[in-house]
């Protein structure tokens, strides 16, 4: 304490010394002789003074200069504390001055840095005041920062565009009844729009305030308050991202909620999710990353720390929805949505990896990849189940009229959508064991092994077609009438061939498959003609026991019976119907004409119920699907 007093005399003590000195000077002026004792005291004072001068001139001078500097800075900082306005709202000059004040404090602290602070005294006092002022300034800067970020955040509301929804409207219901042929003709334009938003940044914060934020970051970092800066920055930006997600109408749903959703609603949400994923990852987060780089680029790991803290929660929320989708039941109609989800995530995965490339981002990267492979597995599983569901779809009653079974319509229309996803599909199916016996059965002599027919998807498609065919054979056995079995198989296989030929499926099934299946339905047609008409025509044959009249009569009855039955049957495809009518005519008409030609003189007209022309005309009524009868009515 004594030391303190010598170095820095208090004002009062100073006044005493001044008074005493003046007194001494007065006394000195009055006397002319100095006693030895007096001289000794004065010499002592002199030497004392000489050492003191050094202190006042160097240390003391410097301290007072430092103190002045601090006072100046303190004043500016304190002045703002009572000002209701925000500094950065009050103009660039004000802000610059404030930052200048903080820098002055930092200079003060630095210039005192060499002195031991445990030492008491003037330097200590200045140092304490400086630290205190710095803390107040930092607190203020944090507030200013939040305000700037909050006031200058910018959104753009992207227009909700449905991204390549290629597979609309394939609904699955147990009866397969809802499928119509027309609905899938929208397998539409995709690509093109996919990549257009790449490299697109948003200004999440008005660019004109970026230098301000940056200068706050710099000064807070220089003051060793970077952690506070980061927490405030994260807090505001994370909130802004939440808000943006709400602008995009992203809902917070628990997994349990998602699992309870009806398919239509779920499907809509999936499409929305796909779009949001794209916007958030390739636009918003890329922009956020850029913002972090701009502001925190010089601060090493704080940069990635902030970015991850800002985005983690929202990204996990998005991934969680995907997870909920893979957790739900694997119904066939989900396949296309799963593939859409898989594709968008596969598209974005490089961007994602670079956004979260640092070590501390590995948690998110890993979750992302887990979901990606989960979606892949789920899509694969769903597809396999689809195949199994076809194989095991059992009917109890025969399908009326022998027409196109809804299962076939469903499966073929479903399959027609798959070629759009070919690359993804091949990737997903690559490592799957293919039931070779099932898949290869249709391509016996490797003639058309072009790449599209030998890719994994092609195998699987043919395998599904083959399950479908076996299923059809089982279903055909429900008909008691052989002829109707043939009609049913002919119809359905013809339908399959047509769907394959008229779509990209032909590339995967290959010409060989098509040829072979054309052969199959033609074979069924031939079998039909034989099964139905051989016996009818045989009525005309002379078996030695039956007279002519009776042969006419039996033929007519048999014909009428067929007519009654088979006008009810149905061949929806006009060309196919016509072809079959022609081959039927070719079997029946020449035989009948021949019979009538040989026998017309031996039998009276009344026994000849039908002329050749009649028959030809009547045959055209077959397979129309509207029952008619010839009994009791002559068509003349």
């Amino acid at each position, binding site marked *: 304490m004594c030391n303190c007093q010598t170095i820095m005399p208090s004002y009062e003590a100073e006044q005493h010394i001044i008074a005493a000195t003046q007194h001494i000077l007065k006394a000195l002026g009055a006397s002319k002789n100095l006693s030895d004792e007096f001289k000794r005291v004065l010499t002592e004072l002199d030497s004392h003074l000489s050492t003191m001068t050094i202190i006042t001139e160097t240390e003391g001078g410097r301290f007072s200069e430092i103190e002045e500097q601090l006072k100046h800075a303190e004043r500016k900082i304190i002045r703002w504390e009572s000002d209701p306005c925000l500094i950065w709202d009050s103009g660039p000059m004000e802000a610059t001055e404030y930052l200048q004040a903080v820098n002055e404090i930092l200079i003060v602290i630095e210039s005192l840095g060499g002195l031991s602070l445990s030492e008491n005294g003037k330097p200590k006092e200045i140092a304490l005041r400086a630290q205190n002022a710095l803390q107040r300034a930092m607190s203020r800067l944090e507030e200013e920062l939040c305000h700037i970020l909050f006031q200058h955040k910018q959104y753009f509301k992207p227009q909700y565009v449905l991204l390549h929804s290629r597979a609309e409207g394939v609904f699955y219901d147990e009866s397969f009844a809802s499928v119509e042929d027309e609905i899938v003709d929208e397998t539409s334009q995709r690509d093109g729009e996919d990549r257009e938003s790449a490299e697109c940044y948003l200004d999440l914060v008005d660019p004109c305030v970026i230098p301000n934020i940056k200068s706050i970051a710099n000064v807070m970092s220089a003051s060793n308050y970077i*952690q506070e800066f980061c927490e405030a920055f994260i807090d505001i930006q994370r909130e802004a991202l939440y808000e943006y997600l*709400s602008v995009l109408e992203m809902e917070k749903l628990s*997994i349990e909620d998602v699992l309870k959703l009806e398919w239509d609603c779920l499907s809509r949400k999936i499409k929305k999710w796909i779009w949001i994923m794209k916007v958030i990852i390739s636009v918003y987060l890329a922009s956020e990353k850029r913002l972090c780089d701009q502001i925190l680029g010089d601060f090493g790991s704080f940069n990635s720390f902030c970015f991850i803290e800002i985005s983690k*929660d929202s990204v996990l929320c998005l991934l969680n929805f995907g997870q909920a989708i893979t*957790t739900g039941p694997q119904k066939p109609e989900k396949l296309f949505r799963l593939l859409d989800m898989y594709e968008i995530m596969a598209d974005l995965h490089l961007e994602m990896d670079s956004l979260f490339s640092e070590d501390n981002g590995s*948690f998110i990267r890993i979750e992302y990849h887990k979901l990606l492979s989960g979606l892949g597995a789920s899509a694969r599983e769903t597809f396999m189940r689809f195949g199994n569901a076809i194989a095991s779809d059992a009917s109890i009653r025969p399908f009326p009229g022998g027409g196109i079974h809804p299962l076939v319509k469903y499966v073929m229309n479903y399959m027609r959508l798959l070629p759009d996803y070919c690359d993804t599909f091949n990737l997903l199916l690559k490592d799957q064991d293919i039931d070779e016996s099932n898949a290869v059965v249709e391509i016996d002599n490797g003639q058309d092994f072009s790449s599209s027919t030998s890719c994994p998807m092609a195998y699987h498609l043919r395998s599904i077609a083959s399950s479908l065919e076996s299923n059809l054979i089982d279903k055909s056995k429900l008909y008691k009438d052989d002829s109707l079995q043939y009609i049913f198989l002919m119809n359905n296989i013809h339908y399959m061939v047509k769907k394959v030929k008229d779509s990209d499926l032909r590339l995967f099934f290959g010409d060989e498959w098509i040829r072979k299946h054309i052969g199959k339905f033609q074979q069924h047609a031939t079998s039909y003609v034989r099964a139905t008409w051989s016996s009818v025509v045989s009525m005309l044959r002379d078996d030695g026991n039956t007279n002519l009249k009776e042969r006419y009569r039996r033929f007519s009855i048999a014909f009428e019976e067929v007519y009654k039955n088979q006008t009810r049957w149905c061949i929806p495809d006009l060309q196919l119907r016509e072809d079959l009518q022609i081959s039927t005519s070719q079997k029946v008409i020449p035989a009948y004409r021949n019979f009538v030609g040989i026998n017309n003189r031996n039998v009276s007209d009344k026994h000849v119920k039908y002329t050749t022309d009649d028959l030809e005309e009547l045959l055209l009524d077959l397979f129309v699907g509207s029952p008619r009868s010839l009994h009791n009515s002559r068509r003349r």
Partner: protein
Amino acid sequence: MPATDQQASFLGRISIRRNQVISVDGNNDQELEDLELFQKHVADRFADLLSPPEEVASTEPLLSISWLRKLVDVFLCCEAEFKAVLIMCREHSQICKPPLDRLIPELMDRAVKALDICNAVSSGVDSVRQCQKFAEIAVSALEQKPMDDGQVKRARKALNSLLTAMTIDDKENRDFKGAERTRSFGRRGNTNSANKERAVGNFRSLSMIVAKNWSASKQIQAMSSNLVAPRGGEPTGLALPVYIMSSVMVFVMWALVAAMPCQERSGLATHFQIPRQLTWAHSMIGLQEKIGEEWKKKEKKGSVGLLEEMQKMEKLALSLIEFADGFQFPGDTEKMEEVASQVAELAEICGKMEEGLVPLQTQIREVFHRIVRSRAEILEVLEHAAKISQPTT
């Protein structure tokens, strides 16, 4: 851990069994033995959690991060063993018959709820991490020698943010549709200091991932409401392991919810009961009682959760804030020593959090993915069994 070896052999057997599909020579004794072992392992693992060896007890107190990590491990072990028991069961057809035709879907339902809980708890870990960040600021400020006014104020501000982040009512989770911030910007000039220290991190507990109106407490309640111990006379061997696994799942989820900041947990203590007569459940009941007691004590006071480190952190923060409020340079020597030791303690907690929280979160994700996978596998078994049993019934 012997349990791990056991687990390996179980898993080894699954694959064999799955290939054989229907094995003719498998014997019933083996199954009974597996079931016995399962019960024993569950009992042992929980006994270890309830009363760990002396030297562990001091470093891993109940509800500390490292204890929770152990708890999560216990869940993973039990789960693996349970699945082995279930999938290896010879008579898969019994899965589709009463009472399992009801019990297994109920288990699957619980699993889905557990997934949402995992998400909420994982997000709670992030909230704790944020508290850690504030505590670290306070520690670094208060470690300055000598301690000056500026640093003390800095620490006070960080501690205040810490406490605010801790005491956010866990009922409060806005839908982010209404995410307009209620910051008090632009109202400067009102210089009362409490207002000025706006706590950053106020909104941390409002997680994105937890749905609006979702309640951890209700989830636990729903998971346990239909949880009934099988009666002695019931014929099937699988009802018991299903019950055990369900209890383990509910208990672990319950403990995690109690420990970590989580949305809406009122009445958590009373939500589930395990019958006392079951030997494997003794330790679990013991733990439940201990934690339940703690919960009742803390419930009214806020929502930090029972995490040991958070409890301590809260106490230290309160004490240090009190110190900061009365601080005058240079501070009384005796007081300064006390503060130094509190700061050291806070630093130690931060260290434990730094070390343990990320691994804990990773483990919780592992639980999540495990439940997803098992659920899918069990559903597959179920489906398969249904297919086989259909033509005969």
